[in-house]
């Protein structure tokens, strides 16, 4: 990919933080929109790295999966999993 992975990951984190007032969970394609010139597979690799670095987590409705910052949002608390 053309982007530097570290700065791209920082951009993802920044995007999530900026939106955090209204929502904490994001669809995968919210992130692909940040990098319109990159392949979706490469964007996914960044997100996988962020999950493995414990900076982001998955959230699943059972049928749909979203990404969010670790510990962000109301759901963790309401499920008693924080």
């Amino acid at each position, binding site marked *: 990919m053309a982007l530097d992975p570290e700065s791209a990951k920082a951009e993802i984190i920044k995007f999530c933080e900026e939106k955090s007032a209204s929502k904490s969970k994001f669809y995968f394609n919210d992130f692909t929109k940040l990098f319109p010139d990159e392949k979706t597979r490469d964007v996914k690799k960044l997100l996988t790295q962020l999950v493995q670095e414990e900076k982001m987590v998955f959230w699943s409705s059972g049928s749909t999966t979203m990404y969010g910052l670790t510990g962000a949002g*109301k*759901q963790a608390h309401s499920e008693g999993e924080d």
Partner: protein
Amino acid sequence: MAFISSGYNPDKPMENRISDIGPRHFGEFLPPVIAKNFGKWDYHEILEPGVLCHTGLSGDKAYTVRCGSARLISVTHVREICEIADKFAGGFLRFTTRNNIEFIVEDKKAALDLKAFLNSQKFPGGSMKFPVGGTGAGVTNIVHTQGWVHCHTPATDASGTVKATMDAVFDDFANMKLPAPVRISMACCLNMCGAVHCSDIAILGIHRKPPLIDHEYLDNLCEIPLAVAACPTGAVRPSKVELNGKTYKTVAIKEERCMFCGNCYTMCPSLPLSDGEGDGIALMVGGKISNRVTKPAFSKVVVPYIPNEPPRWPTMTKVIKKILDTYAADAHKYERLGDWANRIGWERFFEKCELEFSAHLIDDFRDPAYYTWRQTTQFKW
């Protein structure tokens, strides 16, 4: 009880982690006669209900005994199945896609002995543990979902409706006297994780009241944009309400747009959908999956609502039995339930099955509805 560690270190989740290995290869689990004749089978016969014989090009024969299961089964029960497999079937077994269990034995006598043994095993409450059947032109086991046992959006129970239905049609599980196979499926809400949309008879849980809104807690428990986005019909929008002089951020629901799916509740626990009075069952019939003679077909709604009547849902089982018996008496050999209804006409289907037709049964949901209305002078009086 003391915590027993598997070896996992929570401080270093990636340490010695194994991931992305997928399932075990099926080749490890094939009984010897199956492995030997893999890809070289010649033909099969159903010797009697629940007993099959497959003959290989080599002349080898594999005898299969098939029995039903509740799908929701315990470790104790699975271990008992393993004991049977060890004793009778060389330590191997198979589950079918419809939750039946199959044992492979070497000859016909062993198969019939095993059938007799399986049919003799009972739970203390009186039900059979391993009823043999589910083959040929009969009713086989019902595929189903979780229901009240484990799901957050069900409109009915799955295991209970299935148990009640299988008891009512049991004779057709243990025999092969129908015109063609009848596949019954059960899904406990219209999201259909049980995908019942192509079944001869489908039991479907349905809600009929829009979600309750717990305004006071909603903004604490869930994220409003997600609840709004979850609604397939766009019926949920952000809103504010005043309660006891306090303003709460919440949602408003356009109730006439609600399709009662429960997707908003999945995203937001402050929008519960379940309701004892509102919830119940719809019945759908006439779907099929196989390409045999006619094309695969969708199930059609023939009963819009039956109240939940736990523990045995007597109204529902009575209607199912009536449809099944009418079909059995009237259809041609090889004719699936939907093919029979198409041949006699759906107006005749309602008449013969003594089902009431109502406006709820005329499709009004988006484009596909039009294709279900009648555009011909051909119909029956």
